[in-house]
């Protein structure tokens, strides 16, 4: 069974997975808003509470992650930037250990050493980092490794539209194109790099246009549409697996929250966010699934329940876990 439109055919199981994963991701972030605020009220102090440090949430940007990860397998690599939760969840990162990492617990993916911007789950080949555009070359390297090993694995790297102006973006795409590597760069255009609007930072309307600078394929997804993202990703992944080289996909997406939690957001219109929330891609997909008869209200609720339960369990696990011992700070610099 599948959802079929003029442009795209999506198997129902994929569609359900996409919906469930978006819900999981959204609920994860909603829960994180609460957890992050603990200990930071009435006076906000970034270093206080069970989840301290910077916190960049992905609420509203779920379509980018699920639309392409629907085509990935465990052996495909994903690298992600400072706003990584939706990608990690869509790639199947161990949710308990990921959450525990954000709580700084020894059961976390990095034993509490990494934190929310530094999640590494080699089991599903996921990694992220806090330096803009720096994950792109890592994906190039993963794609190179796949080619060297003679596998049809692909490497996907997510970046924000702001990152597309960094030197590493250009170098990496050129290198991947020269070497014809199975690389896909997904540019999430959420209209801002912190406070700087795309218009003030980017000389070209959309970054898929920059594919011309590398003789590779480019694709654009408007309206934060998960189905269209699914479609162009399918083509890009096919291209990559078949040895036809890299693709740049840009997706118009929406950042419902501040750049990080605590961002006063003085640089954007008060009306902007309520407007964006009305376009919520999760609500839209939910409606579509019902209208198209893909799932009943009950089925959808059951997907939602499953997703939320997993998140709740992950937070419980994180909270119940132990902190590392202070002196463990000295371990893991080098492996033996």
């Amino acid at each position: 069974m599948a959802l079929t439109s003029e442009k795209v055919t999506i198997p129902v199981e994929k569609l359900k997975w996409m919906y469930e994963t978006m819900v999981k991701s959204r609920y994860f972030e909603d829960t994180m808003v609460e957890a992050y605020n603990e200990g930071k009220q009435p006076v906000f102090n970034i270093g206080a509470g069970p989840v301290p440090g910077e916190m960049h949430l992905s609420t509203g940007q779920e379509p980018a992650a699920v639309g392409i990860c629907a085509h990935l397998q465990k052996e495909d690599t994903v690298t992600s930037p400072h706003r990584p939760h939706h990608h990690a969840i869509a790639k199947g990162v161990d949710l308990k250990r990921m959450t525990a990492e954000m709580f700084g617990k020894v059961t976390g993916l990095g034993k509490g050493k990494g934190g929310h911007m530094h999640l590494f789950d080699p089991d599903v080949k996921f990694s992220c980092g806090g330096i803009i555009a720096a994950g792109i070359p890592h994906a190039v390297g993963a794609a190179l490794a796949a080619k060297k090993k003679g596998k049809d694995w692909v490497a996907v790297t997510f970046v924000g539209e702001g990152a597309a102006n960094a030197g590493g973006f250009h170098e990496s795409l050129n290198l991947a194109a020269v070497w014809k590597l199975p690389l896909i760069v997904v540019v999430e255009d959420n209209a801002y790099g912190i406070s700087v609007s795309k218009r003030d930072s980017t000389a070209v309307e959309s970054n898929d246009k920059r594919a011309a600078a590398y003789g590779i394929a480019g694709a654009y997804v408007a309206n934060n549409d998960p189905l269209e993202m699914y479609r162009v990703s399918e083509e890009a992944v096919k291209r990559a697996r078949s040895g036809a080289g890299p693709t740049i996909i840009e997706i118009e997406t929406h950042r419902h929250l501040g750049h990080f939690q605590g961002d006063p957001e003085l640089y954007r219109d008060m009306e902007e966010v309520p407007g964006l929330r009305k376009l919520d891609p999760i609500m839209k997909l939910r409606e579509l699934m019902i209208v198209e008869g893909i799932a009943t209200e009950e089925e959808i609720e059951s997907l939602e329940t499953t997703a939320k339960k997993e998140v709740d369990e992950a937070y419980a696990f994180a909270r119940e876990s132990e902190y590392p011992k202070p002196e463990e700070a000295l371990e893991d610099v080098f492996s033996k």
Partner: protein
Amino acid sequence: MEAVKKRMLTGNKAMAEAIDLEMERDPNVFVLGEDVGKYGGIFGSTQGLFEKFGGDRVMDTPISETAFIGAAIGAAAEGLRPITELMFVDFFGVCMDQIYNHMAKIQYMSGGNVKLPMVLMTAVGGGYNDAAQHSQTLYATFAHLPGMKVVAPSTPHDLKGMMISAIRDDNPVVFMFHKTLQGLGWMDQLDASVSHVPEEAYTVPLDKANVVREGRDVTIVGLQMTMHYALEAAEKLAREGIEAEVIDLRSLAPIDKETILESVRKTHRLIVADEDYLSYGVTAEISAIVAEEALYDLEAPVKRIAIPDVPIPYSRPLEQFVLPNADKIYREAIKLVNEE
């Protein structure tokens, strides 16, 4: 009048005020960097300037540190006086070539024929669980490389005075400000992040350490957070009859050897406390200066307190373990003074 003179400011407002005054005085001064405009700088260093001077003189940039720091160099070579911000010092690796191969060397390579009157300001420091890529100070990384003045003021008063000096200096100045000492509403509120700051423009030299507490028993050199920790430790030590002399290093390059040596010649004991990595760091340089130039004055081994050569971990107990603090300084001072 009295009230005006005792005006208290946070670190970030002191910095922004310095820039404001200099921008008013000299039309060649302008600011460029990420989020320096409407946002006012992630750490408030340009707060209010965009509203006052507009987007032509307070310029938001793309995330292109190589391009905009390089552009600052090119503009400075044409006689403008740019102030450019590297948001976190941790990001230096994407633009260090512009900083140290060009900003720092062009004056020298040109035989003094090109001047680069510019300021590179950047936020340093940890302690709020921002993990390995957003918590470093990298003091020594910059101070090791010749051709740039490198300063790290510790108080709102010095942030303003040294920023004005930096802007007026005809040489490139790396101006490191500590996030936690900016007095931002969303960070830990420290007394040290607020101080009396005169309203008018004034300068503080870029090459002088500051003896912030006199003492006879042990010299403690620190800068930014470790200077404040040293003061805290000194008070506790005083209660036990130990008088520590505390030096605020302030300037990493050029380093004010004389103030340090003079102090050690008096106290005969030295502790250096630093929020940078231990090896090849600030503690090394200061210890070496003393071992080379005041060895016979030392009555005990020097003691170095710094981050023990690990990346900065995220989790609170781990980060607290590796960071210097007042208690670590206090304990080492006690040991050192009791050393035979």
